[in-house]
């Protein structure tokens, strides 16, 4: 595989980096497991009913993450409050709450490191994951219900920052989407009602990498990082394999066993039992069950948006755009961030306009994608924003 410049990645990186997190706030004000640290939406006070409720919530979250093998509770208290082992006593009391909520005592430890000068006392939590199982992906952004597990009946809720391992299934429910960051820095956007199995990801010298993903259901949009010579990046569906020769493409696994590929940039090989076609940027192809891949067809052009292009609204605005020849329907995406990584709502529209549903308060970015009669999704439009303040 040759190195290619991921032009669209530039767009994605230049866009807003802020991530919206739709996860339930809960007693901790939000909970994330990032890089060995349990991050909460607010500072955890050393004692009190709120702290106790939060720790119980953490214990529940730990039970859903079997890869986490041990937790350390740190009580960072000002020096005056740490004297004579008081700091350690606070940490041990917090550890006891975790134990009483179901975490094994042998997996909880307590420490009392010095506080950061000038900061009030607080509790912090860190964890250790199973070392023998290297992480192959991380949930970078998520909206709606996303879950992961070794088998379909073992799916447990997951959130931003969670690690994913080889062989795990990643599932997005209806109206949910997520963006995964793979170990080779590639990004995979898992659209709603999709299930993806993470295969082995091998990283070698000279940027050589082997990435294999299996799309069981739904659609993924992939932004593959540049790989060195001999690299492999494959997305398998039931009937076909999309092997990356470029950087950005979408793959959909259809209910009838067919697969659809849309290459936005670079070149992707679509292989099936009865043949293989190379689908260049701006083209799409599909494999029907038992058939060879169809010849590539051009994707629909990006719609030209009419408005609104920005500004605040007290009532839900109407989004308008111009007709794209060949488009049967239009997919309207509203996202909380300009990279459409999180908080994405997707709607279908038959006309060249769409009335934003009531109840979507706040700032939203929007774009439109044309869809042809065979379901091929074309290039996305430019991104505009509106701020709804009822």
């Amino acid at each position: 595989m040759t190195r290619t410049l991921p032009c669209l990645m530039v767009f994605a990186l230049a866009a807003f980096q802020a991530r919206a997190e739709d996860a339930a706030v809960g007693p901790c004000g939000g909970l994330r497991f990032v890089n060995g640290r349990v991050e909460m939406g607010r500072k955890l006070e050393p004692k009190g009913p709120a702290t106790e409720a939060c720790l119980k919530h953490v214990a529940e979250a730990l039970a859903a993450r079997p890869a986490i093998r041990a937790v350390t509770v740190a009580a960072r208290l000002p020096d005056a409050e740490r004297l004579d082992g008081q700091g350690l006593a606070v940490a041990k009391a917090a550890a006891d709450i975790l134990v009483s909520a179901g975490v094994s005592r042998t997996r909880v430890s307590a420490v009392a490191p010095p506080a950061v000068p000038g900061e009030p006392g607080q509790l912090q939590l860190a964890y250790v994951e199973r070392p023998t199982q290297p992480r192959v992906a991380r949930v970078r952004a998520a909206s709606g219900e996303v879950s992961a597990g070794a088998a379909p009946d073992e799916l447990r809720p997951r959130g931003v920052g969670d690690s994913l391992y080889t062989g795990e299934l990643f599932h997005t429910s209806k109206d949910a989407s997520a963006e995964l960051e793979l170990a080779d820095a590639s990004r995979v956007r898992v659209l709603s009602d999709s299930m993806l199995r993470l295969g082995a990801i091998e990283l070698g010298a000279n940027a050589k990498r082997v990435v294999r993903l299996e799309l069981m259901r739904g659609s993924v949009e992939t932004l593959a990082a540049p790989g060195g010579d001999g690299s492999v990046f494959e997305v398998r569906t039931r009937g076909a394999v999309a092997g990356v020769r470029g950087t950005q493409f979408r793959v959909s696994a259809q209910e009838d066993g067919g697969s659809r590929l849309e290459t936005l940039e670079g070149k992707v090989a679509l292989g099936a039992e009865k043949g293989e076609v190379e689908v260049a940027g701006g083209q799409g192809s599909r494999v029907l069950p038992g058939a060879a891949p169809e010849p590539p067809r051009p994707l629909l052009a990006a719609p030209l948006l009419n408005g609104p292009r920005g500004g605040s609204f007290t009532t839900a605005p109407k989004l308008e755009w111009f007709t794209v020849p060949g488009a049967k329907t239009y997919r309207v995406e509203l996202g909380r961030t300009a990279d459409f990584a999180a908080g994405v709502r997707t709607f279908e529209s038959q006309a060249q306009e769409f009335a934003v549903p009531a109840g979507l308060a706040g700032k939203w970015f929007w774009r439109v994608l044309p869809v042809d009669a065979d379901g091929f999704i074309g290039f996305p439009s430019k991104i505009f924003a509106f701020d709804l303040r009822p």
Partner: protein
Amino acid sequence: MSPSPETPARGPRLPRPSPPLLRGLAAVVGLALAGVTAVTGGAPGLFERALYDQAVSRLLPGVPRSADLVLVEVDDRALSALGERWPLSRVTWARAFRALAAQRPSAVAVDVVFDQPGSRDALELGEDMLAALRESGLADQPAGAALVTDLEARLHAQDGDARLAEALAENGVVILGAAALTEDVSLMPPLADGALGSPLPLPVGSLRLQAREVAGSIAPLRMAAQGSGMLNMLVDADGVIRRYPYAVGVGEHVWPSLALATALRLMPEQGESLQRRATLDHGAPLMRLPAPDWLPRVSLADVLHADPRSVGLDLALRGKTLFVGVTATGLHGQSTLPGQVAVPGVEIHAFALDNLRADRLMRSSGIVALTGLLETAVLLLVFGWRCRRARTLGAVARTALGLTGVHVALVGWLAADFGWVLPLIPACVGLGLMLLVDSAARTEELGRQRGALRRLFVRYPQSSPGTSVTPGDPR
């Protein structure tokens, strides 16, 4: 007119360049070398590294013996006494940090990255046994309950990561190692933004060492420690470490080296000046080398096995800044300093700290590089002027020799007293080339004059007494 068969055909002859022009070109060569050195980060340049190494290792005064820095080394004796192989178990590290905490050091800088959790196979087996005991109902019986209690205690003691985190928190002054990942593929798992705490408020773009990501110890240990510092070195193409990167740029953030993180911990009131010094020479200034045996050493075996009330250990460690690292044969990185001095990496962090706090840093870029360029230009200009004025080749050679002496003395003086490392070779090359050009021009001029004289003598020969030669006859 066609040329005669005897005369070879010749094209138009180019005018011979004048000696001043050739001298000017020679000076430009020297000046260009100095310019290249300046724009490529300062001295030592391409052809002067070996000379710099000899000078800095033999002529410049070394860092004097440290009074408050101590190396606690995992040496051959420690491995033998512990009966362990490298890497040491987390339980042993926990014992070591507890033993060090008992001596109340002012800071402990650790040249180790605990980037992976310790093995938990035995712990998981024990946990499974505990669960089986509870499920079977044996734990409700007195003997079973005692067994459960004993097993829990043993599992607690064997949880190396947790015990190490406790020891680090108890110590309260430990700075752990971290690594800036500069290769495309690294063996260490990278950390997310912000995992190492707060970055330094320094400009990232100008730093000499840039990395993609950082890796560090596992989260419980980072949380329990006082901070983390980068262990990276800047190794030149010839495998020699001449510069120490006090600050590393990773994305939009700047992270401190182990030496800088320790210095900031020791002297928080001097934070601003320490950070200012750390950014000299693009964050990686040249280092002064230590004198032999400048750093007192204590084996980890002594720390672990000596009586905690030992007066000797107390004198060696109390209130000191301890650098902990491995020096056992074949285990420490072969870090080669100028003069082919191989030292363990942990020692480099120690004398980098000493360089930083004593402001013994040597600088060669920025204004120093500009000074070097100007000095080279002045030197060559003076020599060019002198070449025009001097009447003999001897006088020119003496001038070149004198100017070279002045140049070497100036470069040596600035390096020794001010830590300014100016380029040495470019001026010498310029002077040498100019001398060569001048001597060639003078020799040619001498030959030309000699030929003219000879022709003159042939035309007007002096008659010897008693001989008669007709003008024009061959002699």
